[in-house]
């Protein structure tokens, strides 16, 4: 099984590769000599990215009281690390273009992923995390493994779906039963190959069993909870019909009061629509 998983990733790294603009941004931010202007310039090279960034910066997701006209101003206000993470998050759609829509439409899949990202972001903001965009990115990436599986293992996936149609089960459990691994393993391995930071990798790899996340339990707990809420709010789907069970330990780690849930629902719905508009504009 391990061989199958490993080859699933290694065979496909050429197809699923990180956008170069993200890699350059990451370099620039890690370079001690670069300035805000340098970073702004890199983004400006990509027209589509610039437009998306500015739309986001001016949206209720940020709720900044006045208009942000330039990318440099956006970098100042939003933060350099945050801009980098946002770049990754919004570029994912380009990375996974051309996926067959036999199992799920891309719109549905991304809606669920963006919902998870948006909700995780709200939770992180409430908890005063310094970089909420990391959570946004982790949320968008959390089910990426499924996209790879649908593309590269279609017959196995078809079997799993027919199993579930006969007898209701959680898809991620059926994945593990039939293949020996599930989409979280695939996603985690991909992010590791991409050399993304460990907090992202762990959060994706353990979002269905958050108690196993040893180094980044809070990030993982956030994605775990956000995923469940995205399901409960019926915002898109990645193929899972049923709502995954909540880990009480994970919930406890967030110190998030149950009384805040209505607010989370309300703001989550609002932000998902906006983010979808900006990141994945509807086909005309």
């Amino acid at each position, binding site marked *: 099984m391990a061989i199958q998983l490993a080859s699933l990733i290694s065979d496909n790294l050429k197809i699923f590769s990180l956008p170069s603009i993200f890699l350059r941004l990451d370099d620039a*931010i*890690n*370079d*001690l*000599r*670069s*300035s*805000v202007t340098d970073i702004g310039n890199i983004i400006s090279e990509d027209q589509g990215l610039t437009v998306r960034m500015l739309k986001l910066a001016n949206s209720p997701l940020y*709720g*900044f*009281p*006045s208009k942000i006209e330039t990318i440099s101003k956006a970098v*100042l*206000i939003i*933060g*350099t*690390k*945050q801009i980098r993470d946002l770049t990754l998050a919004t570029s994912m759609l380009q990375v996974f273009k051309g996926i067959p829509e036999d199992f799920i439409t891309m719109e549905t899949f991304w809606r669920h992923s963006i919902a998870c990202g948006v909700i995780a972001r709200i939770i992180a*903001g409430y*908890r*005063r*995390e*310094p*970089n909420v965009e990391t959570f946004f990115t982790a949320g968008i990436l959390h089910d990426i493994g499924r996209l790879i599986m649908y593309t590269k293992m279609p017959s196995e996936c078809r079997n799993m779906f027919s199993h579930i149609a006969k007898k209701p089960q959680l898809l991620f459990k059926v994945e593990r039963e039939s293949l020996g691994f599930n989409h979280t393993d695939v996603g985690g391995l991909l992010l590791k190959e991409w050399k993304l930071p460990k907090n992202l990798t762990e959060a994706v790899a353990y979002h269905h069993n958050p108690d196993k996340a040893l180094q980044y339990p809070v990030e993982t707990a956030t994605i775990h909870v956000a995923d469940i809420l995205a399901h409960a709010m019926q915002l898109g789907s990645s193929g899972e019909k049923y709502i995954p069970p909540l880990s009480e330990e994970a919930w406890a780690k967030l*110190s998030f009061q149950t009384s805040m849930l209505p607010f989370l629902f309300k703001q989550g719905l609002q932000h998902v629509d906006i983010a979808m508009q900006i990141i994945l504009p509807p086909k005309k």
Partner: protein
Amino acid sequence: MKKPVKKDIQIQALQERLDHIEGAYKKLIDYVSELSASREFNKYVIDSTDPFNILNIGLTHIKRLLSFEELAFYLIEEKDASFYAACCEPESSSEKLGTEVNQCIEDGTFAWALRQNHPIVVPSKLSELKLILHVLGTQARTRGMFVGTIKDENLKINDLSVTMLSITVQDISYSLESVMLYQILRKNSEEALRQSHHKLGKAHSDLKAAKSQMLRQEKMASIGQLSAGIAHEIKNPLGIIVQGIDSLKDSLTDSLLADTSERIKKAALRAARIVNDLLSFARQSPIAPEKMDIVSIIEETLSLVEHQLNLNNIVIIRRFEEGTLSALVDSDQIKQVFINVLLNAADAMRQGGNIEIEAGTTVMPTGTPAVRISFSDNGCGIEPENIEKIFDPFFTTKRDSGGTGLGLAVSQRIIENHRGTITVDSRLGEGTKVLVTLPAPEQ
């Protein structure tokens, strides 16, 4: 001609790389020294218990991170949740910064910054400077806002400066949090301390009272034990003396010798009486109370002593209430008390007089039904300074006539064992009244 050009390009590239590495290295040194300075800052902040001190140190440290023109910490007024400038650098700039802050509040930037957890950079509306805002707060609670103005050219906002500023402000937030908690804790514990102080004071006086009570009882107990021991020791030689005198008396012809031996005998007998009194005082005889008619006890007592009293011209006047007056008493011991009281009364009236005995029902202060018996004489009365001592063991004004001073002490003990009361009221030259109350049996 290609070769040398290629080499030059290679050297050029290597040189650039070297410059890059050197520059980065220098920056790293800068940052490491900044980090170690932050450790110093942390040490100060951890030890501090004064919020304003923490804020002042914080401002000093932040100035070393970035070249601010003006900077300040705003805190939240508890009663109305408004923001006020808690400390400012330089002091004179508080008004100017205040204007900037008001502008931010008006256009919503302030409220927005309150919800982020990283430094926000916005252009100032009032000058060419840039304004940096950073919320001061922990996940639990927002505590205020850091505000600073900075020239554009000094704004080296790159990754590490931002992080350092954030870390410093967050450190301050956490210190404030623990200082506030410490202050709350202290306030609560001061209040608790005051209350426990009060309780302690009361407990102390209670303890003192209990202690003196205990001492008295101990004294009594040890006196009792000592008395019993001595009494037994003395009883033997006394017996021998009395017997010896009796056997001697028959052989004595001389009148002087006869008188002397008579006096020796009397003295011995008196000593024996003292010993008996001591013994009965020492004896912790448990009482065996029964329901008794108190009048009959009084009458039995009188039958024992009335004859002797009449010899001394003492008349007994009886005033008993109608009906049976029942009390829960050990009849032997109560008789002992009554005899004692009557003899005391007789002692006070050497020339003769009246003893009025009253008996009737009453109620104890606790509400239990009881029987009262009073003995009133018209004798010489008791000196005021002696009244409070009359129940003390060994207190007597009649030592010359053989008084042991134990009579009333024993009587008091017996009455207390019965859960009754005995009190004495006296007026010099007029007489003395002894009042005894005893609990009645439950119906």
